[in-house]
């Protein structure tokens, strides 16, 4: 590093002034950052963090980070957000400080593109990825940027990162046409690729801050980064765990209500019987047990290819919850609708049930694309007489009509007859109403949930069971 300032840089407009309060001030700013990303960091947590730092050498990065995490992030989800915010915050803080003191990394020196043997570089990077050395990766990322990044930067970091990765010939899939000793031949693990991309992004960002002498605006974390790696619904094992929990929770909810004596009705017959012991004086009152009302549920589940993974997941949940509800009728649909309640009752094993459904439900007609309009009509015809204000209808689908008429008028008729209607959409809310998704038309008549992570499903089941018991 050379301490010389690049010529022509005036008092930078883009670097925010250093916050007051030195070290403590920075920590508070960090806590504030965490709060903005949705962590519940209270004053007591911050006090704890300060207290912890009195006992831990804050110059040790691992200890410092762990001490902060132990006091500020109190669930695996929070921990993940914490890591991301930690990296972002201290990277930006360091860069801002460097820019403030005008420390730059000097000229390109020996790293000018012509000096780098591209083939060797590719090999080196692939080898470092395989060995997983972080420090080496960081250096190589800088070399790679020097080699490929300078001349034709697009200005968008993400695009540049991908362009450099492609130029290096790094792929997750095996590349059998490469020579035997090439480390890229068997493909690079995705996790490693992602790490390398992070390094690239970071280094590009650093170079950008140096060039423009201003901090780019802070980028809020998006949903996909936030989710734990095991978050998506495709992870069947996680689903099983959630289902087991839900069952237990539903079961205990029932008990709670049974034990509650408020608004209980006196059971006259049993009271009189008990009064025989006391000579006909009804000293002890007997109450009628309160039975939790179990809702009748109709479930419609899209099983077309666009939502395959989600519907497997959803059906498995319903399958497991079968005994928590008094009456649960399940239907699957693509172009037509078909009742599968019996299949679920017969098959205790989920795998067998889902096989049976895909084999003989006969829901695909010609095209195999979902036809919501037709499904609503068939459903209404089939079930009209059984819908009543205590019935709950749950629809799982992405509301992608493939250009066919959505017939939300028929859907409205269904929701008017049923007590409650929920829509679970396995797509992130971000994609709703893009392309052929017409969820907005249906959302007017029902409550729609996004449901592509297990915790969202939990949230939904909470809503479902809470309101059904209190009604």
């Amino acid at each position: 590093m050379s301490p010389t300032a690049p010529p022509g840089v005036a008092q930078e407009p883009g670097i925010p002034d250093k916050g007051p309060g030195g070290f403590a001030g920075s920590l508070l700013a960090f806590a504030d950052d965490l709060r903005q990303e949705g962590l519940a960091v209270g004053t007591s947590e911050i006090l704890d963090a300060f207290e912890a730092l009195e006992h831990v050498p804050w110059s040790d990065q691992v200890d410092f980070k762990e001490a902060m995490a132990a006091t500020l992030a109190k669930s695996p989800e929070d921990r993940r957000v914490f890591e991301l915010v930690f990296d972002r915050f201290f990277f930006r803080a360091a860069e801002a400080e460097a820019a403030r003191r005008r420390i730059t990394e000097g000229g390109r020196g020996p790293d000018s593109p012509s000096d780098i043997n591209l083939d060797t570089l590719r090999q080196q990077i692939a080898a470092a990825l395989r060995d997983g050395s972080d420090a080496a990766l960081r250096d190589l990322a800088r070399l790679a940027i020097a080699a490929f990044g300078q001349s034709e930067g697009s200005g968008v970091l993400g695009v540049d990162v991908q362009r450099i990765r492609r130029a290096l010939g790094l792929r997750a899939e095996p590349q059998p046409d490469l020579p035997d000793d090439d480390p890229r031949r068997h493909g690079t693990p995705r996790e490693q690729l992602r790490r390398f991309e992070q390094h690239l992004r970071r280094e590009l960002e650093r170079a950008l801050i140096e060039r423009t002498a201003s901090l780019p605006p802070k980028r809020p974390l998006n949903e996909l980064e936030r989710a734990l790696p095991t978050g998506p619904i495709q992870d069947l094992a996680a689903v099983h765990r959630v289902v087991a929990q839900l069952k237990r929770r539903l079961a205990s909810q029932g008990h709670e209500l049974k034990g509650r004596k408020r608004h209980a009705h006196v059971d006259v017959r049993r009271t009189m019987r008990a009064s025989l012991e006391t000579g006909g004086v009804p000293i002890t009152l007997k109450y009628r047990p309160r039975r939790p009302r179990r809702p009748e549920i109709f479930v419609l589940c899209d099983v077309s290819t666009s939502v395959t993974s989600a519907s497997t997941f959803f059906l498995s949940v319903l399958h497991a919850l079968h005994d928590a509800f008094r009456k649960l009728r399940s239907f699957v649909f693509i172009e037509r609708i078909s009742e599968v309640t019996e299949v679920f009752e017969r098959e205790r094993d989920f795998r067998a049930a889902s096989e049976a459904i895909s084999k003989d439900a006969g829901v695909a007609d010609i095209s195999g694309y979902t036809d919501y309009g037709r499904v609503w009509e068939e459903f209404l015809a089939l079930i009209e007489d059984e819908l009543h204000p205590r019935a709950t209808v749950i629809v799982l689908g992405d509301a992608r009509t493939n250009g066919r008429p959505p017939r939300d008028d028929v859907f409205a008729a269904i929701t008017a007859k049923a007590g409650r209607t929920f829509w679970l959409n396995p797509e992130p809310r971000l994609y709703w109403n893009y392309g052929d998704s017409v969820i907005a038309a249906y959302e007017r008549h029902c409550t729609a949930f996004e449901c592509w992570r297990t915790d969202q499903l939990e949230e939904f089941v909470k809503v479902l069971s809470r309101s059904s018991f209190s009604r």
Partner: protein
Amino acid sequence: MGATEPASVEDVATGLERVGYLPGDATALVAFLATKLGKPVLVEGPAGVGKTELAKALARFMERTLIRLQCYEGLDEAKALYEWNYRKQLLRIQAESDDAGWQAVQDDIFGEEFLLQRPLMSAIASAEPVVLLVDEIDKTDQEFEAMLLELLSDFQISVPELGRIEARTRPVVLLTSNNTRELTEALKRRCLYLWLDYPRLEHELAIVRLHTPELDDRVAQKLVAVIHRIRELDLKKPPSIAESIDWARTLVLLGSSDIDRDTFTTTMSVILKHRTDLDTVAARVGVMLDPAADAA
């Protein structure tokens, strides 16, 4: 006071190692902070990664008694905090019969002599500092959690008849949870948080070595590699550290010098506890252990 008061994170790390527990970076640090700040630690993580074991090791290392409260659904104050020794009270009353006034008897029978101490009470009333383990806190209901709050933040228990009982010594408190339900914010707020996950490969290898030094090095390496491979699959119950150690012990008992396909299929049931998991693993991992695949 306790015999061992750690002075630094390294102290804790080496100390725990000495008593047979290999902590990760975060684990040692949080354990250290717990002793320094006097705050309870909430330990979460999948089953079998050594949450309970951490408390035991901590007790051994700090040379303190371990008091354990195993939580379950329906656990209440009488079983966790204290209970009046009803029979003894009755006897006392009968022994006194007429000659004592009501006030005297009442003062008498609600004394500490008639208090049955349950784990939480004995943890804070103990003359020597202890390690208190509240195991599987997620199994209890929220009401019990709320009751714990007084204990966790102020280390005191209110007994209506006696008044406040304050801790004579500060216990190190560990709460473990398998994350089967979300704990309340109020509880989390009072705790340090430690997430114990499956360890990295080298770390687990060290753990297995520590517990079964008789096992051949090469076998141990292969064992850990296989376990890690299995954890990547979608299983109902992925094998944890406890299972790795069990498996290592099994292999030592059987005198196996290598993990080949046969050994694997015969001993697989040590690490997998579900019928469907067994099938999945047999299909996906068993093949990998073929001599042919080994050579490639």
